[in-house]
């Protein structure tokens, strides 16, 4: 019963996660001026989150897949046989995955910031803000939003694009490498 193990999938997932975390940490460090440790932690959190959500989506869609598509899925997973019918679906799914993972990572980053905010920090921020006049505060906030909002989304978008490129490159190398010396 336990002779067939998804060890290759696990190995690939680990490799892709490490790749993505390394690349995205570098991008976040550059783009958001975060310290090294923080950028690695953030990159790890958002990538793990998007992977986990990806699995949950897979498990919720899998029972709904019609039998014909299920055969093709089994063919892909066990035998790496890609018919042209499913290849189109995979490319489409790749696009969807890219944008969903971008949204998940962006909102994940917001959530993480909210979650990791220290109470002291929040209070002092509030005190400082109370000292300032409302108009001044508003202009500051508007400027801050204008500066930080798009740049954060930009950084996440670039990070996501670069990590997906790296993963695609690895997949491409796997196709080139002859089957008998593969992992």
């Amino acid at each position, binding site marked *: 019963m336990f002779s067939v193990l998804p060890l*290759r999938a696990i190995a690939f997932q680990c490799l892709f996660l490490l790749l993505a975390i390394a690349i995205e940490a570098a991008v976040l460090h550059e783009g958001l001026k975060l310290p090294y440790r923080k950028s690695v932690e953030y990159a790890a959190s958002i990538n793990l989150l998007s992977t986990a959500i990806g699995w949950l989506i897979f498990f919720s869609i899998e029972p709904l897949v019609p*039998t014909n598509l299920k055969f093709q899925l089994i063919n892909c*997973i066990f035998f790496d046989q890609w018919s042209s019918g499913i290849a189109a679906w995979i490319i489409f799914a790749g696009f969807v995955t890219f944008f969903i993972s971008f949204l998940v990572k962006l909102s994940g980053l917001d959530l993480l910031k909210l979650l990791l905010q220290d109470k002291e920090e929040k209070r002092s921020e509030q005190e400082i803000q109370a000292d300032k006049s409302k108009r001044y505060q508003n202009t500051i906030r508007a400027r801050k939003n204008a500066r930080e909002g798009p740049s954060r989304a930009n950084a996440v978008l670039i990070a996501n694009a670069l990590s997906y490129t790296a993963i695609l490159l690895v997949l491409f190398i796997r196709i080139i490498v002859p089957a008998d010396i593969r992992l």
Partner: protein
Amino acid sequence: MLEAIKRFFEQFWTQFKPPRSFSWQTLIFLSLFSWGMSLLNSVLTDTEFVQDFLATMGWFFLTLGVGWALADFKIEFLGLKIYPGPWITGALTCTFLFEGLREEFPALPFVSWPLISAAIAAVPKFLKRGPEFKVPDAKGRQELVILFLVSIILSCWFSFHFLLQDWLGDYPSILADRFDRSAFVINTASPRVSDSRGVLILNLAESIVIDELEGRSLAETELWLFNVQSRVADIEKQVLDRISFLEENVLWNLEGSVSGNAPRYTLNLQAIWQGPSSQTGGYFLQKPCSITQQPVRNPPAASPPTVSQIECNPISDLIPLNPITASSQGS
């Protein structure tokens, strides 16, 4: 003799005596005691409830004791500090929580193991001396986020494993094929032709053919062979009714072809698999059966001088249905 036993117990006690009355050793002893009583109970009386209750208490104390004992135990590996304690405690908890559901949901203990372990590992971060509840600091919260996400992914891997096992349960003939090209799975056992249910189908078909043809006259045999298409379709139906009903049954086809000239014919039975396979288009297994005429000893009057005898060869290996693509793939 008694002296020796006494000395042994004294030795044992000094070795394993709990340092304090409230310590992990006490809990382990309590669990052993519970199990001992449960065993005693099962020998002396037959009250299942008391016995189960005591055994459950045994598990409970063991889990707590092991969790406590391993609380500070860590392994350093490549600069990472790994605390195996919560994982072992989690495994014990899962075994004892889902013991009754193992038959129905074999995946449940494995899938929940990482989540329960992460929850156990998270508990100390929410406690401060007292013990009182506290909200972990930002660093602790970051660690918790990563811990929980990693444990979710681990349990997804377990679910994926069990999903694959479900598929293999529905389509066991996949196991006869090679997973060399797969990017997802490995097969630790080497594939055997006998894993393919085509073998079962061909063997059943063989016995039906022997039933129908053996001992028949040449004319009857030739009539049967003349209608081989419909006969084999009929056999296919019988065979699929006889083997256990699985989702993969619709992917199997039985076909037969006849070659040769009177009085020697060859009936070639083929079980064709059109499901997922490492060969594009699928594969087939075949079993050639030679049909010969044997003279009848002491034939009674008005019976034919010879009757058919059927001899079948062993089943072939998996043969790709589409030889052109198979050879270009180099497999």
